[in-house]
C-alpha cells in the first residue's frame, strides 16, 4: 500500500463504515461509522469492555488471529478496503503500526529490537539499517539515553524507556498510521508525560489513533474524540467540544467521572 494508491485528500485517512464485530455470540461492536483525519490524533474513550480496543485492532487486522472473531462492514484506509481478500495483511501492518498497552520489547538488544521490522522485510544493508535505527530512536526521543548502549538488552531498560523502544521499533518500519492501545497505562507519571510529548510531535507526520482510559490524556492529546459505550459509538467530535459541551448524558457522566 503506497501512499499514493487511491489516495484522495477529501476522504478520511481511516474510515469505518457500518462496522459490526462479534466474539462468538457476543456482539462487541454495533454499527460503527467513524472517520479519522490525516495527521491528527483521534482518541477512543469509554469504560472497560466498551469495544474501543476491538475497534482499534480492526485497523491493522490484529483481531484476525482470534478464534471465533467475526466482523461485518468495511474499514477503508486511504480509500482502500482493508478487509478485501487481495490485501496482504503483512503489507497493511507495515503501513499501520501499533504500540501496545504493556511495553513488550523482544528479549533482544535495543538495536535488534528497532531493526527487527527492517530485517523481516529482508533489508540486509547494514548502513541503511543503522541509519534507520538511529532516526527512529531519535524520533522516539530515546537516542541520547541509549546511543552508547545499543547492544544492551531492551529488557534492562525502565518501563518508560521500553515503551519508547517499542515506539521506535514501530517508527523504523515507516508506517503512516500509528495505533496506540493505552500506551501509558503501565507507566509512571513522568514517563507518561514524555510519551505524551512524543505523541504530540509525531502527529505532524503520522495519523494517530489512541485508546485511553485517562480523560486528561485524551483532552491534552487529541484533536478528535470518540466515546464508546457497550459496543456503540455514542458520540464523537472535536475533543474540546466533546469535553466542554457533550451532547449525550452518558458522555457527560463518563467524562465527569461519574462511572467508568
Amino acid at each position, binding site marked *: 500500500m503506497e501512499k499514493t494508491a487511491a489516495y484522495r485528500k477529501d476522504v478520511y485517512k481511516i474510515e469505518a463504515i457500518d462496522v459490526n464485530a462479534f466474539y462468538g455470540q457476543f456482539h462487541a461492536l454495533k454499527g460503527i461509522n467513524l472517520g479519522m483525519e490525516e495527521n491528527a490524533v483521534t482518541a477512543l474513550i469509554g469504560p472497560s469492555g466498551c469495544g474501543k480496543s476491538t475497534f482499534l485492532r480492526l485497523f491493522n487486522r490484529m483481531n484476525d*488471529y482470534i478464534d471465533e472473531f467475526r466482523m461485518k462492514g468495511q474499514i477503508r484506509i486511504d480509500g482502500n478496503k482493508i478487509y478485501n481478500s487481495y490485501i496482504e495483511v503483512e503489507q497493511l*501492518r507495515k503501513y499501520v*503500526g*501499533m504500540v501496545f498497552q504493556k511495553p*513488550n520489547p*523482544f528479549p533482544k538488544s535495543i538495536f535488534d529490537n528497532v531493526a527487527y521490522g527492517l530485517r*523481516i522485510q529482508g533489508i540486509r544493508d547494514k548502513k541503511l539499517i543503522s541509519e534507520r535505527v538511529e532516526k527512529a530512536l531519535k524520533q522516539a526521543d530515546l537516542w541520547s539515553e541509549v546511543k552508547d548502549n545499543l547492544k544492551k538488552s531492551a*529488557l534492562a531498560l525502565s518501563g518508560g524507556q521500553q515503551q519508547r523502544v517499542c515506539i521506535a521499533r514501530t517508527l523504523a518500519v515507516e508506517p503512516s498510521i500509528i495505533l496506540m492501545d493505552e500506551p501509558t497505562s503501565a507507566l509512571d507519571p513522568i514517563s507518561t508525560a514524555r510519551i505524551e510529548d512524543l505523541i504530540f510531535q509525531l502527529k505532524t507526520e503520522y495519523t494517530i489513533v489512541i485508546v485511553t482510559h485517562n480523560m486528561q490524556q485524551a483532552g491534552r492529546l487529541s484533536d478528535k474524540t470518540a466515546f464508546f459505550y457497550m459496543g456503540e459509538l455514542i458520540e464523537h467530535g472535536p475533543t474540546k467540544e466533546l469535553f466542554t459541551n457533550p451532547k449525550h448524558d452518558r458522555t457527560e457522566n463518563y467524562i465527569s467521572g461519574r462511572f467508568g
Partner: protein
Amino acid sequence: MLRAKEYIIEKVLFLCALITILTTIGIILVLSIEAVIFFSEVSIIDFVTDTQWTPLFTKKHFGILPLLSGTMLTTLIAIAVALPIGLSIAIYLNEFSPKGFRKSIKPLLELLAAVPTVVYGFFALMVVTPFLQMIIPGLSGFNALSAGMVMGIMIIPFVTSLSEDALFAVPKSLREASYGMGSTRLQTSFNVTVPAASSGIIVSVILALSRAIGETMIVAIAAGQQPRLTFDPTVPIETITAYIVQVSLGDVQHGTLEYRTIFAAGITLFIFTFILNNISFFIRKKYQQRYE
C-alpha cells in the same frame, strides 16, 4: 485420637519420601564402593586413556573410550533426528495448528514414549537396518546408525512436549508485537518465539540427551557388541549400557575384576547423566521467571 492418627499419617508420608532418597544414596554407594575396588586394581589413567576395552578377553584392556564413543555416537545420531523433528512438531502445534488438532495430537505423540523400548530395538534391527542397507550397501547388520535413528524417534516426545510448553509460555504480547510490524507467522516463530523459548528448548534437548545416553534396550539389540573407538556409524559398536547388559546376563563370575567393570562403566554413565540433569536444572532455574 485424631492427633495420633495425624501423627501416624505424617510419619508414613515421611517414610515414603525417605525411601526414594535412601534408594538414590544406596545406588551411589554401591556404585562407588565397587568402582573404588575396581580402580584399586586398574589405574584410572588407563581407564580414561586406553583406546581398547577387552576385559573379557585374555589380553585385558580397560579403556572406557570405545564404550564412551559408542554411547556418544548413538546419542548424537538420536539428537540429530529428534531435535529438528521434535522442534518442528512443537512449532507447528503451537503456532499453526488448529486448537482441536493440538489437543488430539499431543496424547498420540506421547504414545511414542510409551512403546516398550525392546519393541523399538527389534524395529531397528529388523526393519530400519534392512531398509538402510538398500541405501547404504556397506552397512553392517548391527550398526550405530539405525539404533541411533530409532532412539531419536523414541525421544521425539521428550523434545516436543517440553519445547511446546516453553513456546506456549512465550507471552502473546511478543507475538502481537511481531505481527504488528508485518511479520508472517513463520518469521514470528523463528525470530521471536523460538529465541524467547530457547532456555526451555535447551532444557528439553538436554533431558532428551540424558534419556538417550541411558537408553539400553535399543542399542543392546541393534547396535552390536563390539567396543571400538570409532565415529563410523555403519559398523557395529557397543555403548556403556549395552556392555552392562552383556556382562550382567553373561556367565561372568560375581566378585571378579571382570564383573566389577560394569560398576566402573555404570559410574561413568551416572556421572554423565548427573551432569546433564544438573545443567538443565540450572538453566531452568535461571531463566524460568523471565516473563513472570
